[in-house]
């Protein structure tokens, strides 16, 4: 097995050792989502109208919240040095770590979101689209967040700074994710939105690992 695969599996195993961490992220997602009906009131129309936006925003926050430690743990315990000294490109290491992050947050979020969508009165087709957009869009969030996490390594107040850097860059993903659902709810086609979402994810995939690797090299100095 290659080093990249080993890194991916190691990160999954570390999460597996503490299933609570994933649970916290998912719980955060649920709490953040449930909060709105509580805060806004029970009008079904209104809720269905804003469901897409709320669910996507909550998913965005949940994935950023969990990104905080993506590289920080490796940085603090010295494992980052081992990654920097691995005899294969650091870009691949960045990719493997973001992939592992996606597998334990983006993926479960995409599975969980339709359940919450029901509570907002979304119709079946919209629920499907919701899951699809999250599936296609969250990899971009993991990568953008990964870049922010790498840039803030060793900086204090990592969490908030990370979010400040990542949020504006996440806007396109958020917009197309939410609007796909809305388009489907109003009966328009959502494929264009989904295609753009996919394109955004591919562009992130093609460019951000380099930026992340560059940021990690800085941190090792």
């Amino acid at each position, binding site marked *: 097995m290659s080093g990249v695969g080993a890194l991916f599996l190691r990160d999954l195993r570390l999460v597996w050792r503490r299933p609570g961490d994933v649970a916290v992220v998912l719980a955060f997602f649920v709490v953040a989502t449930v909060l709105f009906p509580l805060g806004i009131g029970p009008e079904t129309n209104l809720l269905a109208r804003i469901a897409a936006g709320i669910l996507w925003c909550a998913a965005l926050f949940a994935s950023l919240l969990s990104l905080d430690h993506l590289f920080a743990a490796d940085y603090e315990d010295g494992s980052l040095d081992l990654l920097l000294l691995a005899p294969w490109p650091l870009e691949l290491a960045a990719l493997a770590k973001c992939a592992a992050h996606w597998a334990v947050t983006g993926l479960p979020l995409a599975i969980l979101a339709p359940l919450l969508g029901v509570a907002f009165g979304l119709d079946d087709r919209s629920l499907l689209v919701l899951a699809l957009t999250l599936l296609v869009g969250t990899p971009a969030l993991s990568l953008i967040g990964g870049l922010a996490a790498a840039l*803030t390594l060793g900086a204090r*107040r990592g969490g908030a700074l990370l979010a400040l850097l990542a949020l*504006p*860059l996440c806007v*396109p993903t958020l*917009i197309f994710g939410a609007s796909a659902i809305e388009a489907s709810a109003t009966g328009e086609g959502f494929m264009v939105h989904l295609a753009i979402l996919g394109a*955004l994810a591919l562009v992130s995939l093609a460019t951000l690992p380099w930026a992340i690797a560059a940021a990690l090299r*800085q941190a090792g100095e």
Partner: protein
Amino acid sequence: MADLHFLANPARFRRFSRRVLPALSIVTAVALAVGLYWALVVAPPDYQQGDTVRIMFLHVPTASLAMGGYLLLAALGASLLVWRHPLAALMARATAPVGATYAAVCLVTGSLWGRPMWGTYWVWDARLTSFLLLFFLYLGHIALSRAYDDSERGDRAAAILAIVGAINVPIIKFSVDWWNTLHQPASIMRMGGPSIDPSLLWPLFWMMGALALLFATLVLLRTETEIDRRRLEIAENQD
């Protein structure tokens, strides 16, 4: 880039800016004074908007210059990362707050203008929103470059952010435009009239030039102070 290469050395930059800055400051001051007089006194009030139209003379130039400033930031970031020009880092440090201030001035003047024009300080219009996000990118850059003890690390991290951000600005702009055409805004608004009268256009051009000069002056001045600060830091470190 040849010029930048020549100026990459802080000492040489120093000599250059010593020679240029005094003249530049004077030209800037004169241009601003003339421009403000023209814009605030000479130019006629708009037949619809009255005197509030004068906000435009500040609003429009700061908007374009703030956008151009981010490109400059990305270029400086690239020359730091690729050619390792030490001066690029200091200039980026100098540029970001100036650009952010211009963006803030544009936002504030826009809001003040929006109150009489639209009846509200803010609407979620595509252009406004994408500009707001640009302002956040500036803030992120400033915060990141100052988040480390080792200022060189902050410089390089911020440079990476500036480059990624510059790639993203068009994408953000595109997506926000898309977003706003999907849902029609509730309020009736359109930026600017159908055409601008020449009596307003010329002072606008002039102000654009004057504020560009101000931008350059501020960046040069701040770069000088950044050089001094870095020198001081190194001297302090030398125990």
